């Protein structure tokens, strides 16, 4: 059965172009459309290094040339980012959406700090220096976390 598969062309010239290609699931052969084939030929003519990768179920498969315009999907060299790697990237280099979610988390913590401060004020019987410091710390961190959340939710 012939289906379509997403293919990404990248080259050392800095191009990254996505397209769909015909894919024979039985034989694992991928036939590139003329648009992608032109890019490959142009990269070859210019002496630029290039790579073709097919995407399926979150995996990346390198494509090995069989004949002109026909490539073999190499299932033995499939690659997908592991969960730990994805989690690490989400923490250290979050995408725009992940940054917005972190902003919401900061706003939640800000609300929790302000609610905590209100509860403290309502339930404190003696206003010692320690009690004052606790309330001021909660209010201060609530304000700081609100500002941090606002920066993270900037959205661009």
């Amino acid at each position, binding site marked *: 059965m012939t289906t379509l598969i997403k293919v990404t062309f990248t080259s050392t010239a800095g191009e990254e172009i996505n397209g769909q290609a015909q894919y024979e699931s039985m034989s694992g052969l991928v036939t590139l459309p003329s648009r992608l084939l032109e890019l490959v030929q142009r990269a070859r003519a210019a002496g630029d290094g290039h790579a073709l990768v097919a995407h399926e179920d979150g995996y990346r498969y390198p494509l090995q040339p069989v004949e002109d315009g026909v490539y073999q999907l190499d299932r033995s060299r499939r690659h997908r980012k592991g969960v730990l790697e994805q989690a690490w990237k989400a923490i*250290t280099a979050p995408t725009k959406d992940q940054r917005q979610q972190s902003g919401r988390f900061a706003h939640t913590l800000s609300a929790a700090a302000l609610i905590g401060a209100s509860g403290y004020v309502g339930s404190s019987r003696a206003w010692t220096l320690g009690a004052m410091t606790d309330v001021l710390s909660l209010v201060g961190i609530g304000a700081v976390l609100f500002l941090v959340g606002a920066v993270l939710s900037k959205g661009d």
Partner: protein
Amino acid sequence: MTLGLFVLILGGAISAFLLWADRNGRRVHKD
């Protein structure tokens, strides 16, 4: 006093880390 210090240290650390991750994410993803 203890609660105040705990909140300041934890909240400050979370704020600093989130701001750093935000800058790093914008640098890496160029968006």
